[in-house]
């Protein structure tokens, strides 16, 4: 059980984010919800690549006596997470600038009132 706690944290984060997107009415909170989902997925990728007692896969001044590859964490998930974080920043910037404009046009941030496009 104890070794699955990080995975439970991942699921909890994804579900909290999904809850915010589904049931919160404020646009900013929806944006925050998407950010939380993204953090959860990033955490998921990172914990997939962890090896017990591993060090970062960097050879500069590596502690002497470290056996590699057995004592290094996996590098690929870290690279994927890096990509994913930058994607998250880009999405966040675009979403927040849209929210700024929507607030000026609609005068509200309530998602139930921002629905001129329906039916």
């Amino acid at each position, binding site marked *: 059980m104890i070794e699955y706690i990080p995975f439970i944290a991942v699921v909890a984060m994804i579900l909290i984010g999904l809850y915010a997107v589904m049931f919160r009415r404020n646009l900013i909170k929806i944006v925050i919800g998407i950010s939380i989902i993204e953090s959860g997925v990033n955490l998921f990728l990172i914990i*997939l690549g962890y090896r017990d007692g591993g060090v970062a896969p960097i050879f500069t001044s590596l502690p002497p006596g470290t056996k590699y590859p057995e004592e290094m964490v996996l590098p690929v998930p870290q690279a994927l997470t890096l*990509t994913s974080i930058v994607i998250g920043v880009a999405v966040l910037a675009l979403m927040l600038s849209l929210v700024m404009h929507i607030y000026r046009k609609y005068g509200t941030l309530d998602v139930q009132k921002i629905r001129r*496009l329906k039916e």
Partner: protein
Amino acid sequence: MTFLEALLQHSPALVIATPLLSAFLLPLVGRINAKVRDVFALVMLGVTCCFVGLLASDVLSHGPRVYIFGAQNLNVPLVRILFEVDSMGIFMAIITVMLAVIAVIYSWSFLRREDGLDKYYTLLLLVVTSALGMELTGDIFNFFVFLEISCIASCALIAFWVAEGEALEAAFKYIVISSVGALFILFAIGIFYAQYNALNIATLAHLLQFTFLDKFALVILLVSLGMKAGLAPMHMWLPDTYGRAPPSIVLIIMSATLASFYGILRVVFTFYGNVLTTSLRFSLPAHVVIGWILIALAIVSILIGVIMALVQTDLLRLIGYVAVAEIGYMFLAIGASVASLGAPYATVALHGGILHIFNDAVDIGLLFLVAGAIYYVTKKRSLDDISGLARTMKFTTIFFMIGLLAVAGMPPLNGFTSKFLIYESVYQLNPILSIIALLGSILLLAIFVKVLYAAFLGSELPALKGVTEAPKSMLLAMGFLAGFAIFIGLFPNLLLDTLVKPAASALLDHAQYISMVVGGL
């Protein structure tokens, strides 16, 4: 090695790199002169077209082509990203570049009076790049990256008319939907990585066991990509977006949507190709279950699309709902093909589905361009405010009628050819499906007769006295698509034999796709 051979060898990379480099250069080119910028965008897309054509001629005659980034040869664990171009991918790439060229030609006149055009062309080229990348890549994380590029760039383009609140609303909805979908796809990629420690599609397809986690990932991939492709009941973003984006952009967003649809094809046929025939509980084969799920969602899409389109008054939004119905036809064909895998009519259904991708791009694209022309000359969106346009806009009316008949599946236009294959093959699976598909087509005809009557026939309204014909470049763009519609309607076999049949066999022959990479080790 001659120059041409070298070019051919590197063309999978150049297909992506050319539009990408031109997108990076465009803000700098745009500082010189507006005219130079427009020509630059078109010329670079033309160069991309040449590379796609070169690649297509090679792939169709010599089989799939693999390109590895950063190394000459495949080596034992596939750590590098690679492109695997087969007939299906190249078929989609041809559709993408065709739509892009037409959209650029159309934009010349359509957006002449707008500002922010260098950003517009930059983002347009980026969406084209991302759609091409999704179609040619052989790496699942790379697919996700390109999906995100298309999501962000199209979102910014949807909000092009920032002065309208509705455009911003549509853009916000689009980015929420697509980023949530993309994050779920990333979660599924993580599951694959955890189980097999690979990110390459061919390797993963080779290793796939259809464990519970694989089923879980399959559901996430199907639903997320289905939402991006506009499958009901997750289609609501599509009419919003298509109705509020500039119509030239709709063509580009449509190519991204079709690339998501291609993603579903790839997932079902290649990724899970090895395990499709595994028996689940109650001795049901997996492909029957997946096929009927797709068929059910497709039927819902067709019915919701046509029924909702019937009551729309906003022309662009109406065509958006029709696009949902057309997506439903594609999913119907694919679902029927998966459900009856192995039967002779499964191949026919797949041919119909793949041909319908092309026909959908041409027909819906033509209708959007016509609606954009109407908006350009009248500045009105609602069908209630326009009437009698046939008197002044003769060419536009003709193009609209071609698009109308083609979408409704009337012979001898191109919509009929693919729908004919779909009806015939689906009938053998279950006659009721065929009847629903026909009913949808009839309702589509009714919808467009309404539009024809309301917009083009009838008396001339006093408010529309000064209306003239649309500018020449817009007519040229519409003419291209109308020409395609007629030509494919008259000679369907030309397209079917050269592009569609190889694409279908490439999808069905997943063993070849896998052995191109895994066997080469």
